[in-house]
């Protein structure tokens, strides 16, 4: 119990300092507020706004501010753009979060086992990681999607399956470094098993860079989902930011608002997440501030 106690205390102490550091960082706090607002919009927005993003609500191409039309205008089929931005956010954020979760889980498993056991397991898992790294992610995901058929679940699965190598490499590096530390040797000396050492001794100490990596991965997964649904390879039954841009791109000259607003939504979401990621990085690693 002692070894995990010490490790946990160290993490908690650095955690408390990190929160204070994070809150002192204006850009990070700004990002956090922006992201919270976006999250709030996608969770409660549909209920509050109450307009079906698939319904025809006004004459096609009614611009924003049109007295008969909704706030952000309507698209070529007369669908409310604001309702689309609100409803599409749900798809994009959910798929992005699930995909990032999968990517981090696979990366953690492969990288953790490779870094902890070393030798043959390390060599085998690293070859596997290299294999996934030389396949261009979007192309590979497109192939997987044609095999699995398009749906929100398969999109998340495809993104998760192609984007884990970075997380695996990072986890491996951290595990390699930490397993040589004194407290890990102490844990082993008092007879802690491999699984216990990995999960309760090494993992908490590897957390800071992994949390930062998770933030970045969520951002990448959101951009990825947007790209896939832009190409029309996602689930066409649900509205998402990418598919709004893809379907309306031909009408940009007549109706700039149909493409602009979903794009701005993606941009602000990823921007806020990167700002949070940067803030976390600085908070965990004060020496590297501003790099």
């Amino acid at each position, binding site marked *: 119990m002692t070894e995990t106690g010490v490790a946990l205390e160290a993490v908690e102490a650095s955690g408390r300092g990190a929160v204070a550091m994070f809150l002192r960082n204006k850009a990070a706090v700004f990002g956090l507020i922006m992201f919270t607002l976006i999250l709030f919009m996608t969770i409660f927005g549909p209920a509050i706004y109450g307009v079906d993003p698939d319904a025809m609500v006004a004459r096609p191409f009614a611009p924003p501010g049109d007295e008969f039309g909704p706030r952000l205008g309507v698209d070529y089929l007369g669908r409310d753009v604001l309702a689309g931005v609100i409803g599409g956010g749900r798809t994009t954020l959910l798929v992005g979060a699930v995909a990032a979760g999968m990517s981090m889980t696979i990366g953690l498993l492969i990288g953790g086992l490779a870094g902890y056991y070393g030798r043959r397991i390390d060599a085998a898992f690293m*070859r596997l990681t*290299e*294999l996934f*790294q*030389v*396949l*261009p*992610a*979007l*192309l*590979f995901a*497109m*192939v997987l*999607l*044609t*095999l699995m058929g398009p749906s929100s679940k398969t999109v998340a699965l495809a993104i998760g399956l192609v984007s884990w190598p970075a997380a695996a490499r990072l986890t491996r590096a951290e595990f390699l470094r930490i397993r040589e530390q004194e407290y890990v040797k102490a844990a082993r000396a008092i007879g802690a098993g491999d699984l216990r050492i990995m999960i309760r001794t090494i993992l908490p100490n590897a957390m800071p860079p992994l949390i930062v990596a998770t933030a970045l991965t969520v*951002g990448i997964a959101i*951009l990825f989902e*947007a*790209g896939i649904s*832009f*190409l*029309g*390879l996602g689930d066409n039954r649900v509205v998402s930011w*990418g598919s709004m*841009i*893809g379907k309306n*791109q031909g009408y*940009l*000259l007549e109706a*700039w608002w149909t*493409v*602009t607003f*979903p*794009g701005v939504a*993606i*941009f*602000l979401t*990823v*921007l806020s997440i*990167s*700002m949070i990621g*940067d803030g976390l990085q600085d908070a965990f690693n004060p020496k*590297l501030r*501003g*790099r």
Partner: protein
Amino acid sequence: MLALVRGIGFRLIQAFGLLIAVIVLNFILIQIAPGDVALTLAGEQGSGSPEFLAAVRAQYGLDQPILIQLFQYLWNVLQFDLGESFFWGRPVLELIQEKIFATILLAGTALAFAMTIGVLLGVFTARRPESMTSHGVTILSLVGYALPVFWTAIMFLVVFSAKLGWFPIGGIEDVRYEGGFFGELLDLIEHLVLPAFTLGIIYLAYYSRLARASMLEVLESDYIRTARAKGVDERSVVYRHALRNALIPVVTIAGLQFGALFSGAVLVETVFSWPGLGRLAFESILRRDTPMMLGLLIVSAAMVIVANLLTDLVYQWIDPRIRVGGKR
């Protein structure tokens, strides 16, 4: 010298193994994919008696044990036979050969642009980390990273091509244009600028940040202090002593991101109707052209492997202490 040759040899063997793994993975994907050649042909002819299916499968060797099929497939691919496209009815490799130059041109230009400007910005801001320009570059890199590339592509196309008329609307050349070699070159460049710039923005964001961070770190090291102390002038310290070491992480990331560049090319090529591999990939996905897709996956992975090998060689040139194939 011997060590160098051995190192390169080791890396080549490793790269070859990786290529074999990619091909085997492709074979597995083919096995998972629903339908086969026999069903496709039966669909085209509108008749599919069991005898016909069996005959076609025997003809294409699909009745052989799976391992024999795998070796046959490996052998074919290693002889550059990637099969025939379902949709175009032509050899996959031939179609790829027609489009590969356009993609290399686009991705290469984007990479060169992002590397040069990114490193310059990084070096420039690392010298004055607290200046306004430095903070500006940090913000720009955050913005560049968060922009969805397909969206910027559409916006640029509409603003700079359709509204302002500065650049042509998509494509790689104006077919009506006749103006000798230089005229055609100019025409190509006109078509290249906007897509390459769009694709380059994301990487510009990465590299400027990375170059700045690594430059800041290098500038703090002892040998830089020594160089300054012995009176080497500042420009020489920055560009000759520090830059060389600061470039190593930038080159690492550039090499690793070659695959990502390819992914970005799919989106940019689709928007700008750039006749490259990315657009070909998008079209073959829409047409469920499995041999074409898998051929593209193999060729693009091979390109990434080659790019990684080249990165290793560039390392050597930047830092002779790094031996190819071994650790530092």
